[in-house]
Structures are given as structure tokens and as C-alpha cells.
């Protein structure tokens, strides 16, 4: 069937966007509206599902099918949508509290099952919609409305949690880089399986500047490494720093110093099924790993399920439910 041609305007709904001025959510929304026409799918086949939180308003603003549901359950609801109609392109918009606190169980199980669903995780390390309480990704010592003397709950690292839950695809991206986001969303759509994209989203009101040390234009290139599959792990404004493995740890080296050449630098293999290196990259603080950290092709839940269904159908004893009802130990009353 021929796919219709769209522009980003086709994906703008008639609803007024109600996020705070300056919020990164606007950037992500626009990046998504630009990515959707490039995905080669009909508009009616997209479904956006969200839970509760600032970012969970997302579906209202994208002119596709969508549901704004209840706190934490987007992953489970999306699973039902996908199982009911595997032809749909199903997206989850969720936040750090929605996905990893109240919805933690659904989040890890979706990753484990590997349904072909895409998750955009807006991680702002705070509860925004309830006005500033600590979240499961808030830093130790962080002062919030509910941690006035500093947060004492150690945070999750979303990538580590996801890969530990058997995630096949994990990517991380800054909140203020629309072009990279658009590209990443298209890549995620192409990937067959559950894809998790963590967006480092700044909350201008309750946690302003939480990612500045990583995402500020001045420092970004020196403190982030944008990983690309098959390319050496190089970063820095001059692309002269790189990662090597020393023992069981990643270490930053500089090209030209101590005889280090590009040949010594690790090459990123996102498709390696062993998660060890991807976990190390997800945990890395300097440089902070962005881009697609892990993208391992595997059978999706719905593929396995469909194969099983076909097999059962082929061997089924009964063709209709009526045959089943009248089968086995029945008897006649005259």
C-alpha cells in the first residue's frame, strides 16, 4: 500500500501546548513531529501512549491516535495496544517518576519481553507536575520539596536499569539537540524491538540546569561522547580524546600522548549481545555516553507469539468454537 506524504504540520494537533516556556519538552515534540513524516508510515498507524506527568501531555499535541492514561501504566497499556494490533507503530511518552517509580514494574517487563514499542523517557530528575519532589533519578544530596536536607535515596541510572532488564535498544540524547533527536527517533522506529530513548530534559522551573555541565554548548563536546556503531570512541572538540579498556574499567586517553594512536581506541559495537561494555558505557560519568549505546536485534514478543499461533492453528483439533463445545464427553438427553 502506498504511504502518504506528510510534513511536520500534519502531526500538530489542534490543542494548545501547555508546557512552561523554555521547557525541553517543546524541543522533543517538534523533533518528533519532524521525525514522524520520515518514518514511511501512514499517520493513522501511529499511537502515542503516556502516563501522568508533564511529559505525559505529549500525546495531546501529536495529531495521531493517542491515550493519556494513568500514572505509571503507559508501558502496560501500550503493550495491550501492540498485542491487539501489531501493525501499529506504538510509542510511549513517559518521565522518570512515571517509568521508574510508580510504573517501574511495567517498564522492566516491557523491556524484558521485547515488544516492538518505542519509549521516550523524559528524564528531568525531578517531579515537575507535582511541583518539585525528588524522583528515582534525583541525585544523592539533591534538595527538593520532599528532601529539604538533601536526598538520601540513591538514584537509578536508567540505562543501567534498562540493560539489566534485558533492553535490546538503549540510547541517550540531550534535551536541546532537536536534529540529533529527530535522527534518533527515526533510528528507533527502524529498530525491531523495544527501544528506550532517554532524553536529558531540563526542567526550567524545579530543576533548572541539572544537565548544564553535560549539555551546555561550550562544554558539550568535551564532556559527551556521541557513540556511533562501528566508529572509534572518540570525543572532544578536537576529537583527540578517546576511550580504552584498562582492566575492567573504561579510561580516557588523549591521542598522541604516551604513544596512543587511534588504533588503541575502542570501537563501538552497539550490536554486541553481551551487555558488559554497554553497561560500562551507560554508567560512564566522564565522558557521558550519548547516541545509540545498545541496539541488539532479537525476536520480538509479537513475532514469537504469531509463530506460535500459526503452529497451534495448523495442528488445531477444532476449527470453530462450536466444534470445541460439542467435543469430548458430551451426552444426549431425549
Amino acid at each position, binding site marked *: 500500500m502506498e504511504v502518504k506524504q506528510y510534513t511536520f504540520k500534519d502531526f500538530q*494537533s489542534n*490543542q494548545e501546548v501547555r508546557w512552561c516556556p523554555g521547557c525541553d519538552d517543546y524541543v522533543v515534540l517538534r523533533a518528533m513531529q519532524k521525525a514522524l513524516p520520515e518514518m514511511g508510515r*501512514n*499517520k*493513522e*498507524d501511529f*499511537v502515542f*501512549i503516556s502516563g501522568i506527568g508533564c511529559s505525559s501531555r505529549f*500525546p*495531546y499535541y501529536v*495529531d*495521531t*491516535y*493517542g*491515550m*493519556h*492514561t*494513568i500514572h505509571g*501504566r503507559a508501558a*502496560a*497499556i*501500550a*503493550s*495491550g*495496544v*501492540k*498485542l*491487539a*494490533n501489531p*501493525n*501499529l507503530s506504538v510509542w510511549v511518552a513517559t518521565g522518570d517518576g512515571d517509568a521508574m517509580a510508580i510504573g517501574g*514494574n*511495567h517498564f522492566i*517487563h516491557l523491556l524484558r519481553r521485547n515488544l516492538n514499542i518505542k519509549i521516550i523517557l523524559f528524564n528531568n530528575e525531578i517531579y515537575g507536575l507535582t511541583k518539585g519532589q525528588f524522583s528515582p533519578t534525583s541525585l544523592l544530596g539533591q534538595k527538593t520539596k520532599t528532601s529539604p536536607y538533601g536526598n538520601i535515596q540513591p538514584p537509578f541510572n536508567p540505562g543501567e536499569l534498562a540493560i539489566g532488564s534485558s533492553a535490546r535498544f538503549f540510547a541517550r540524547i540531550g534535551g536541546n539537540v532537536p536534529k540529533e533527536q529527530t535522527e534518533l527517533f527515526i533510528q528507533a522506529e527502524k529498530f525491531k524491538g523495544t527501544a528506550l530513548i532517554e532524553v536529558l530534559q531540563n526542567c526550567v522551573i524545579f530543576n533548572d540546569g541539572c544537565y548544564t555541565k553535560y549539555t551546555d554548548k561550550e562544554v558539550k563536546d568535551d564532556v559527551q561522547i556521541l557513540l556511533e556503531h562501528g566508529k572509534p570512541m572518540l570525543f572532544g572538540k578536537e576529537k583527540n580524546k578517546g576511550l580504552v579498556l584498562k582492566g575492567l574499567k573504561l579510561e580516557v586517553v588523549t591521542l598522541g600522548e604516551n604513544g596512543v594512536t587511534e588504533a588503541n581506541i575502542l570501537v563501538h559495537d552497539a550490536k554486541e549481545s553481551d551487555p558488559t561494555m554497554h553497561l560500562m558505557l551507560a554508567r560512564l560519568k566522564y565522558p557521558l555516553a550519548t547516541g545509540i549505546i545498545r541496539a541488539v536485534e532479537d525476536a520480538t514478543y509479537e513475532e514469537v*507469539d504469531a509463530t*506460535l*499461533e500459526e503452529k*497451534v*492453528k495448523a495442528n*488445531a483439533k*477444532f476449527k*470453530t*468454537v*462450536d466444534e*470445541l*463445545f*460439542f467435543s*469430548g*464427553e*458430551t*451426552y*444426549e*438427553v*431425549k
Partner: protein
Amino acid sequence: MITEDNQVKPTRESAELENVAIRFVGDSGDGMQLTGTQFSDTSAMFGNDVATFPNYPAEIRAPQGSLYGVSGFQVQIGSVNITSPGDSVDMLVAMNPAALKTNIGSLKAGQILIVDTDEFNSKNFEKAHIDVNPLEDGSLSSFKVIQVAMTSLTREALSGMTLDNKSMTRSKNMFALGMVYFIYNRSMEHTVEFFEKKFGKKPEVVEANVKALKAGYYFAETLEIISTTYQIAPAKMKAGTYRIINGNQATAWGLMAAAHNADMRLFLGSYPITPATEILSELTNYPNFNVKTFQAEDEIAGITSSIGAAFAGNMAVTTTSGPGLALKTEAMGLALMMELPLVIVNVQRGGPSTGLPTKTEQSDLLQALYGRHGESPMIVLAASTPENCFNYAFQACKLAVEHNTPVILLTDGYIANGSAPWKIQKTSELPKITPRVIKTGDHYNPYDRDEKTLARSLAYPGTPNMEHRLGGLEKDKSTGNISYVPENHELMVQIREEKVQRVQNEIPLLKTEYQEEGDLLVIGWGGTYGNLSAAVHQINKEGYKVGHMHLNYINPLPKNVVDIMKKFKKLVVCELNTGQMAKVFRINFPEFQFHQYNKIQGFPFTTVELTDRFKELI
């Protein structure tokens, strides 16, 4: 070795009975459920009406010989209409002292007790906290006690086989069944076929069980103490093809029939919980019938995945029991707010909390009606017999997709596990189901409503030009967009309530049983139908004028409830809870006075306790 031919057969009488109730009791590993099921199925195939009551402990394999490890199966068969498994029994088969101790109180005086004497030893007395051997202390003198060394006789019968002692002993339940078959003139054919079909690949298992069964049968034939054998003639039932079905299986099949008649895929999102799990496991067998089951990570994912499936166009169902229903309540509010079709099956058990997971109760009624945040009216149905779980599951689906609203179906542990003859229904004989959905067009307003029913129409994802967003936030009455307008919210609350109430126009009027007017009206709902009916039948036989009104539609109630109640001098609401339906009736019908009879023991009503209470009121 005992065979058909080498024994002396005493002469004996044969007597005709209208009905007989038998209870098989033993350790939870003794195979009492299988034994009871075989007796029921054999009797049903012979043409008797049948009602069963499996009663088993929460422990899978409790310590052998313990009091709390006793598992039982009661069955009543008859040549007359049988609505309940009966209170007290005409025969008790007790495989060990603990089983005897916990069940002897239910055996009618003068009736038959069969015990396995091999199990009556000091070790087992100690486990059952028994000081003196009850077979020797005269305490059983009012019964006809048949003492049989069942374990050793079974081993003897199987002596030629290459089986270890443990495997041989395992067949003693079939020895017991053989004896019972002889006493009630049942054919062994069905049970032999059952083993051949089920264990065809393990011929030694088939041989051992069949041998034990026959040994028991022929052994009974030699016993002089069995002076009479009994006949129970076939019952007069509507002509048709029947099968024995339990409530959970009937529920699962009713759901499948509904999806079939709606031409939809059935989606079940569920999480295992006693006593509802069997609906999930039954449906997992049939992906070939366009059934998609999803065992979710928890109760909440069970219902929320179903909400997703409903949005995407499947016939969506979730199944659970009380504690699970509590976990699902927030999501039920979402389904109600988004006005999506969803069936929530709650197989009630004793609560609160873990409570009595394997016992029955009707204590989730108020939870079903009111147990949600906000103003959240919901259609509530209750099945009342094992076999009509099929029809109410079907009806729940029909109402859900034709009105685009969630529907709760209440069953309970008693009818879910109990079985009865079901006159098999063809899907072509069941009503057609027409989901309210728009499949083509260039414009879609999700909250446009049907004038008559107030139901909205769905548009499934994948339909061009119908893109829309639903959510838990309050919506504008016409556009469906988010609205915080105060008057709009009030109006929407009223519309959602009115929509449920208008379903009253589609549900059948109630009919009372036994009497249309009289001194007392017995009001019941759900799974107590059989026991209430048996008691009302009994008291009318004694010359009283008592009617029985039984509810399957709980919200909304049928239109003629008041008309019926007016014709009786007194009203009594009987429930397996502290009076939840009585409360609902008092709120809805303040002009009437409602008496109550309640029981909260994890067990169904008995005829005696009910008729005693009825007489007290008249």
C-alpha cells in the same frame, strides 16, 4: 486376587432413590477431586442431574494425615432437578482419620460410611489429634460402617505389576470409587475410557487404575454388609446435547462465544490468582480461535493491557479475584472515563486480604458497585450457577461493546469450581453482538453519543481520518477535548450515570420461582441460587408460601423488583456476607423492610439453616 467370577455373591435388595449426596474425603494428595469428578461425570452421562462442590485446602500438598490437609468433593445426583450438592450426605468415603474427623458431622444418621482401615493407625491418630480409634470406641454406631483395608487390597490387586508400592497405593481412590459404583449401580465404562484417553501413553497407569477400580467394584459385590444397592433414574431434562462444565470453564467459553459473535479478537490480560486462574489457563489453549491471552506482570498490567487492547479494537477482558479487583480499581476508573468496552471478571473468595483464598464468599459486592474513586457507575452482573457463567460472560461482553463501557461480572469460588450439566449452546443460537464502532468517514467526534443509549462510538487506531486522543482528564461533552468547566464536569458525571441506568431498558424482567405472592420472599443474588432454591423448594413442600427472587443484574437492577416485592408480606435478603445487598436494597427501596440471613464461613448455605430462618420469619 479379586475378580468378577471367583467370589461368592450375597443376595441383596435393590432400591430406587430420587437423589443421593456423596462426599469423598482424603488427603490433598489422595485424588479425591478426580474421584468425585468421575462419579459426577458418570452419573451425568447416565442422565442424572448433578451438582458438585469441590472443597480443597489452600496448601498444595499439606502434611499427610493432617486435619488442615483434608480435601473433599461432594456431589449430589438425582432423577429430580438438582440445584445444590446438598447439605448432609448419604454416603461418606473417608480415606484417613483426619478426613473422618472433619467430615463425619455431615453424614446423615443410619447412612453409609466407607473407611480405609489401613490408614487408621496410631501415627495418623496423632496427626489428626485423635486419642481413641473412632472405629472402636462406639462413636460411629449410628452409621452403617464399611471397614475396608483399601490400601492393602489395592496393592494385592496390582501385585503382578511392576509398580513400586507408592504408585500402587496411589490407585486406592479408584478402589474406593469402584465400591461406590457398585453400591449405586453405576457403569465403570466412562472411567475406564477416561484413563485410556488421558494416560494412553502410560499403559501401566491405565492398567493400575482400571484394575483398582474393578477390584473395588467386585470386592463390594462380595460384602454382606451391603444389603441394598440403589438405582437413581435419569432426570427429566430439556432435550439436547449436554456436557458437565464448571463455572470457570463456562466463563471462558462464554467469553469466546461473545468474541465470535461480535467478530472480534478476544484479548485477556490477567495475572494468576485463586480461584480465577483457570479462566486464564483455559483460554491460553485456544490461540486458534482468535484468542490472545497475556499473562501480565501484575494485576494492574492485567487490566491496563486490556484497556490498550480495547482501544485497539479487541474484545478486552481481565479476570481476577477480590484482592486483584482492588488493585485494578484505578484502571477501572480510566476505562469508565474513556468509555472503553472492558469486561472485568471477579471470581469472589473469602476476604479481606488473602482471607480464605480457596473458599467462597459474596463479599465483593460493594467493592464492585462502589469501590472506585470519583463518581464511577458501572454495569454489574452476577452469574448464579456453574453453567450460566457462560451466558453472563457472553452478556457482559455484549453490553460492554454495544454501550462502550466497562462491565463487572461477579462469580464466586463455589460456582467457579462447582460443576453441573450444561445444555450446550451453539453460537448461532446466541444473540448477535454489534460493537459500536465507526470504520470509515472523514470526521470523528469521539464523544458524540447515541440518543437512546447515550453510548459513544469508537474508532480504532489504523482507521484513516479518525485520529484522536483519549485520556483520564474530564472532557468537553461535545468535542471530547480536555475541559475544566465546572458545569461541564457535573453534566458529564450525570451522563455517565444515566448511560448505565439506561441499560435497564435492555435487561429482562425478573420472575420469581415457586410463588408469585405469599408470606415471604427470599431475595438472593449470584452463586447462592442453587442453595436458596433447594431451601425454598423444601419449605414450599412443607406447605409454606415462600417465593424466590434471584438477581443476576445488579446494576442496573431489573425494572420490576418493586412490583415483585410488593406481593409478599416479608422480605429476607440471604447472602454470604454481612448484608451488602441488603444495604443496597435499603438505599434503593426505603419503603420496604428487609430481613437478613447471612453466613460468612467460606461455605455455601445449607437447606436446614435457611428453612429454619424462613420459618422463624413467617
